[in-house]
């Protein structure tokens, strides 16, 4: 417990800003030869069914292979002449009925085993703790009842948890192998997934979450494009008191950051949600680099005007109805955006409105996730890009 609390305490601003991003810890498969360690209350039934079927399979497989090898050795024809045995049976009704009925009984039993487990999996208990999940290309946003958001899943222990999931673009599927649960996230529908995990796992500071061996894996298992395999996140399970503390701190952390530290401390933390697609050192990615030297860097927002804009976007803007080709046509008094800051903010809340030339409509919107202070922090970071290294770490004016 103390250990856990000290880990949470690490999220205090000054400490976090100084911790080195750790190298990935080496990891081994957990559990048995067939299954990873089970960590949810429903996993036991699933594992029982899995192993029962596996043992049944061993029996049939070994039986079949032994018969096969035995017959081949025993009745092997040496040389070319056929050794015909006139008494070889052509059929045998009792035998054939037998090997039809026996498997039939077995599969009926297996079916019921799976059915029982499945009913349990598909009925979330009424008192479950609800977390809203939005899947997007390519990440997850978990939103808690008190307004806290997180890109990794943190849940209370010893309490049923229900995920209410939706997708903001294509199909995704949320899968936690250690819990043996999985459910597709379908655009235009809500889907539910529930589990209960009794063992707390502890938690690590936010910038270590992606690489730590602590916690359980969370994967996307429905193919969704380029970074499908990078939608993996972590599930951290906290004892109730710790969870409440985490949730509170997660909802309020931005308010506690002082104005002086807003862009240097909060900036990188928010940038971690963007780093998948936006670099700051000019290198190409899914989205335009914030420090792009050729088509206009966002640094200081000075060169932003140079950015070209997709001609075909359905924007009536431009200078009074004239479709623009560069951002200069859209930003300025009387135009679509008054100031560059307005443009940045609109890009974050409503990314499809104007597309940067050469990029597709792939950015998820962050409405409801990033408030005014968060946007201020991001813009502050953009204006001072030279104070951050390529990984988005604040290095100050000296670095």
């Amino acid at each position, binding site marked *: 417990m103390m250990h856990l609390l000290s880990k949470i305490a690490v999220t205090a601003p000054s400490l976090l800003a100084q911790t080195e991003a750790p190298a990935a810890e*080496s990891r*081994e*498969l957990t559990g048995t*030869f*067939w299954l*990873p360690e089970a960590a949810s209350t429903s996993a036991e039934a*699933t594992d029982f069914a*899995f192993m029962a*079927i596996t043992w*049944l*399979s061993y029996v*049939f497989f070994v039986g079949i292979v032994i*018969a*096969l090898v035995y*017959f*081949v050795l025993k*009745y*092997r*024809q040496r040389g070319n002449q*056929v050794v*015909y*045995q*006139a008494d*070889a*049976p*052509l*059929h*045998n009704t009792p035998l054939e009925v037998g*090997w*039809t009925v026996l498997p039939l009984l077995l*599969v*009926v039993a*297996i*079916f019921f*085993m*799976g059915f029982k487990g*499945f009913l349990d999996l598909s009925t979330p208990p009424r008192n479950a703790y609800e977390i809203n999940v939005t899947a997007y290309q390519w990440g997850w946003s978990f939103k808690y009842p008190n307004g806290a958001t997180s890109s990794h899943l943190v849940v209370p222990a010893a309490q049923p948890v229900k995920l209410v999931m939706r997708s903001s*673009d*294509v*199909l995704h*599927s949320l*899968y936690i*192998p250690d819990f*043996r649960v*999985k*459910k597709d996230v*379908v655009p*235009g529908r809500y889907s539910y997934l529930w589990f209960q995990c009794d063992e707390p796992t502890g938690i690590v500071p936010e910038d270590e979450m992606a690489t730590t061996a602590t916690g359980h*894996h969370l994967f*996307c*298992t*429905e*193919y969704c*494009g*380029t*970074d*499908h*395999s*990078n939608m993996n996140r972590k599930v951290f399970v906290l004892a109730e008191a710790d969870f409440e503390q985490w949730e509170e701190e997660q909802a309020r952390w931005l308010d506690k950051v002082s104005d002086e530290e807003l862009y240097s401390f909060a900036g990188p933390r928010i940038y971690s949600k963007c780093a998948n697609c936006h670099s700051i050192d000019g290198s190409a990615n899914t989205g335009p680099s914030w420090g792009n030297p050729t088509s206009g860097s966002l640094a200081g927002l000075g060169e932003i005007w140079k950015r070209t804009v997709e001609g075909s976007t359905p924007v009536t803007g431009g200078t009074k109805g004239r479709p623009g080709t560069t951002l200069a046509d859209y930003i300025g008094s009387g135009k679509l955006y008054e100031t560059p800051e307005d443009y940045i903010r609109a890009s974050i809340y409503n990314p499809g409105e104007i597309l940067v030339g050469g990029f*597709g409509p792939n950015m998820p919107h962050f409405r409801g996730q990033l408030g005014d202070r968060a946007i201020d922090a991001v813009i502050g970071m953009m204006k001072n890009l030279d104070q951050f290294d390529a990984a988005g770490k604040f290095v100050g004016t000296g670095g």
Partner: protein
Amino acid sequence: MSTIDASTPTAVAPAAEPVDNYLTYTRGFLSWALTLDHKRIGVMYMFSVLLSFLVGGIFALLVRTELLTPGPTIPGVDANLYNQFFTLHGAIMVFLVIIPSIPAALGNFVLPVMLGAKDVAFPRLNLGSYYLWIIGAICAVASLLYGGFDTGWTFYTPYSTTTSTGGVIPVVIGVFILGFSSIFTGINFVVTIHKLRPPGMTWFRMPLFLWALYATALIQVLATPVLGITLLMLIVERVAQIGLFDPAMGGDPVLFQHFFWFYSHPAVYIMILPAMGIISEIISVHAHRHIFGYRFIAFSSVAIAIFSFLVWGHHMFTSGQSPLMNTLFSAITFSVAIPSAIKVFNWLATLYKGSISLNTPMLYGLGFIFLFTIGGLTGLHLGTLNTDIHLHDTYFVVAHFHYVMMGSALIAMIGGLHHWWPKMSGRMYNESHGAIGFWLVFIGFNVTFFTQFMLGSHGMPRRYYDYQPEFQSYHVISTIGSYIMALGFFWTAYYLIASLVSGRKAPSNPWGGRSLEWQCTSPPPHDNFKTTPSVGDCYDFSVVHWDEAEGGYVVDRDADPETRSAH
């Protein structure tokens, strides 16, 4: 000299090769390109399918190599390119290789000869299906010029209707056209089997390969149109922006999955049923033993064909489909397990008191039983509701369907290729070379795919460019297996080609088979049989003898009570 009259025993070996065989009957490019001869069309299919197999295989090797390490492995291959690799691998293997491989390639060659017929019922339609296949394949290649496609072979919406890769429409048109090729082949086979059976061949005297092709043809004709219309709807949505599947336009993405699997589950049986037919032939011919439980095997083919239409929802247990539907689909899925199990037991019983030659085709036949058993049993884990929730869309599924589609369907097709190779080419390949090839493929296959069961049950999702470091050792083993398998296939290609150049001339009946294709010369004459041959019990091996002078087996027809009376 003309061909041996099929109704007389081949007591005397033909000293000289008959001039009239289907390969030399006419010459020149056009004589092939415009041929109506089912055997030539079968050979052209075989060549095209094997070429596609090479291409699909290269993509598989690229995928496996990329997965040697987490993150980037092959220089220059990023996630987008990798996504195209596995998509191309899947689409090529399913639509261009496995679906046409047995019916269109081997079936075309063997079916009319087994019936003692001169050709299929509609030879022109047959050539037409081949050219549709070519056009479909060209569309698929053209899609690469338009930027390729990265949708996975399943084309799930709304990703497929929104992805920026430009090749989606060409390839979908290609698959649409391939569907028609498949439908036409199906119609042709159904009519041929109904109308062109020789006197004396009742339904229950047909070789089991024909039963299997018949059941397959029914699925092809009934299921493929659904795929066609689904793909058309996908194109309409992508081009005309009419919302059918994309919720952003008021459509329903799960509807696409229903449509897609309504075809693609039966398609699994388009792949596996004819494979089972081949295995029934191989096992009984090389064990020189009457097939055990003929009627059970024949009926189980038809039963599987019918059930195959009722289980598509088992691909969608996690899709949000109602629990009631999931339950029904799970229950019906188990019912397919029964006829499959029956077949395995029957094949085993056929070995009992047989006279087993361990020729290369037989090795493949026995290999099939081994691999299909694993593929089938692991299907139980996936048909069971709660375990599927855990295993769905992981490598466990990848391993399972490779055991069924490759380990079973493709292995059977390679076995069939060896079984009928002497008939098709007129040459014998080197037996010990064949055995080496088999063991390389068999061992390589198991090393590649068995590891993937453990990957999947430990939670490794499929279609991943990057993965967690703890999965790496299994991935490395799997990749090594794929190299062994590739070696086996290249080796096989080598000795088969070598046999064309320097192989011993094949006798009419190299294995001691009794069905009609072993009664005409190898290779068969242009119109197979001069007169309609008489039909005995095609699984009665009591009258089959080795003939040293012939270098093959002969059927002592006078000892056979059935054909004697037919004289």
